[in-house]
């Protein structure tokens, strides 16, 4: 009987193919939106996790002020760090493998008659070590260059391409405003970061050089640290926090005026932003599904009226009310499932294209697909019930007389 009912429902839906497709458009759009969003959201959070993984899970970032990380995050009025803070941390906590202050700004880099706007960073070799970022050409900074703030630089792959093409830039000069520095190496290509900006669009100079020639102060606004492999980053984090509280003379019960973040936190913060977005769009999708469901109810009511005579015949030859109910309910479910399937296909297609364009992994979640399938069935049940009940409650004589 069930197989028969389903076969019958598919036939009825197929008979009015165009009408059926138009009817389920709402469900198609709703489901497609959910699937596309969730898949893209998953892809971008996978990307973040991947990026963070590349950066090293044993990396800690210390900044003055609270919650200053993340896109648009800015440092507060809290006191900046100095090189001696870093030295003391290294001295107190032996598990710190490498630690480097980091400063950044955006400047015009000029080579010959070519200009290029790039992120200029003042770092030490320890930064390259902490972020696991080797050079592909030339060498890193010499400690003499770091200590005396020599005008030397490392080029990111994007800057190198723009200023020198494929030619070897080692030994060439790059001008940053009044600072003319010698290229000593080229950094390996790293690709886009979690925020979508190009990490290779950078020029790195020794921190001391940055302080002297660009910022003009000896303060440091960011510290990157790599913790020894096998040592708990959580433990290291609390040790660093304790040491910094002591160094910065923060009394008991007072708030930290700095923040230590590990990569896991950074990742969850970034994925948190995505999930807010996903939630918002899911609400839009829910409205679309509601509209789709009402569309199905409407067309099922029309169908029940159109087929009044058929219902009369079925009742006369011995169909029970609940069998008529079942027939129309299954038809509504088949209709909405069809919408769901089309929506899933469309949504995955859109997500695949988006993933390609945004250069993030395409990560379809079978659970979400299954959920969308189940939800569209539910839409059929909820919105198909009322029309089906109307069909089941018909008086056979009236129905047979209907023209």
């Amino acid at each position: 009987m069930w197989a028969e009912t389903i076969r019958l429902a598919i036939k009825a839906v197929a008979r009015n193919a165009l009408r059926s497709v138009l009817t389920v458009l709402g469900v198609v759009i709703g489901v497609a939106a959910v699937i596309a969003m969730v898949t893209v959201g998953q892809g971008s959070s996978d990307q973040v996790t991947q990026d963070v993984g590349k950066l090293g899970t044993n990396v800690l970032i210390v900044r003055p002020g609270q919650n200053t990380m993340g896109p648009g995050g800015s440092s507060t009025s809290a006191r900046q760090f100095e090189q001696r803070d870093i030295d003391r941390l290294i001295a107190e906590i032996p598990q710190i493998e490498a630690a480097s202050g980091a400063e950044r700004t955006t400047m015009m880099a000029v080579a010959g008659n070519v200009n290029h706007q790039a992120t200029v960073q003042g770092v030490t070799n320890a930064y390259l070590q902490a972020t696991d970022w080797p050079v592909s050409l030339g060498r890193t900074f010499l400690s003499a260059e770091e200590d005396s703030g020599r005008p030397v630089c490392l080029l990111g792959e994007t800057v190198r391409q723009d200023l020198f093409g494929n030619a070897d830039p080692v030994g060439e000069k790059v001008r940053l405003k009044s600072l003319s520095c010698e290229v000593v190496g080229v950094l390996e290509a790293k690709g886009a970061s979690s925020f979508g900006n190009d990490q290779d669009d950078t020029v790195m100079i020794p921190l001391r050089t940055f302080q002297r020639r660009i910022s003009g102060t000896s303060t440091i606004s960011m510290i990157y640290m790599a913790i020894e492999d096998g040592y708990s980053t959580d433990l290291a984090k609390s040790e660093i926090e304790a040491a910094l509280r002591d160094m910065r003379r923060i009394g008991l019960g007072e708030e930290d005026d700095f923040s230590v973040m590990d990569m896991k936190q950074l990742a969850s913060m970034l994925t948190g932003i995505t999930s807010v977005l996903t939630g918002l769009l899911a609400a839009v999708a829910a409205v679309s599904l509601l509209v789709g469901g009402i569309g199905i109810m409407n067309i099922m009511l029309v169908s029940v009226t159109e087929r009044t005579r058929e219902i009369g015949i079925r009742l006369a030859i011995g169909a029970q009310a609940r069998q008529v109910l079942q027939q129309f309910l299954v038809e509504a479910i088949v209709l909405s499932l069809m919408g769901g399937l089309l929506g899933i296909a469309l949504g995955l297609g859109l997500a695949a294209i988006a993933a390609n364009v945004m250069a993030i992994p395409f990560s379809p979640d079978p659970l979400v697909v299954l959920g969308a399938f189940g939800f569209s069935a539910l839409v059929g049940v909820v919105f198909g019930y009322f029309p089906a009940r109307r069909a089941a409650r018909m008086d056979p004589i009236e129905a047979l007389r209907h023209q």
Partner: protein
Amino acid sequence: MPQDGSGDTPVIEFRNISRVYGTGEAEVRALDGVDLKIHHGEFVAIMGPSGSGKSTAMNVIGCLDSPTGGEYLFNGVDVAGLSQDQRALLRRHYLGFVFQGFNLLPRTPALENVELPLIYKGIPPEERRARAMEALEQVGLAQRAAHDPSELSGGQQQRVAIARALAASSEVLLADEPTGNLDSHRSVEIMELLVKLRAERNLTIVMVTHEDDMAAFADRLIWMVDGRVERDEPTRKEVPHVG
């Protein structure tokens, strides 16, 4: 208890059945105290002026409608005591309908129309198909099995409806003006088919008709007026001549 010729329980028994529509001024007594017994294997014709309650009586017999008064026994069972679902089962297993409007599902091949009651009986597809085909053969429409009702003549459609009742092996065939839309030649074909099937299958047939010629095929005639049975008598067995 009064017994008649055949001696067993009547298939259909009305005891003082009434069916009243509306109340007060608007009250219509479509059936007004009808007593009736129809036995297994009988071929009964119901005639009477328009509005005399013939269709109402058929609907009550077919358990599509419930009387407002009196008792209706089907094979000795009081139908009033049955639930809606049980009445549906009674229709499914015992009753076949052949109505004036050729009640076939549109845009559905003849074979599937005949199969329909078998689906509700839960008969597996192959057997269903075979039985439906066999029924179509009996009414001489095997070659038309794949045709939709719209591709069949009125008489053919009516034969499909009869085949549907046959396939379901209904004991009782209820025909409300089965020849109402047919010319006299087709009408006689249908009547001859009914007579043949009655003989072969021992069907009980109750037929409403406005035509004396058709009623003559039955062996008993019930004449209704104003919701009452006015006459109930055997038909004169002279086979009508059809040109």
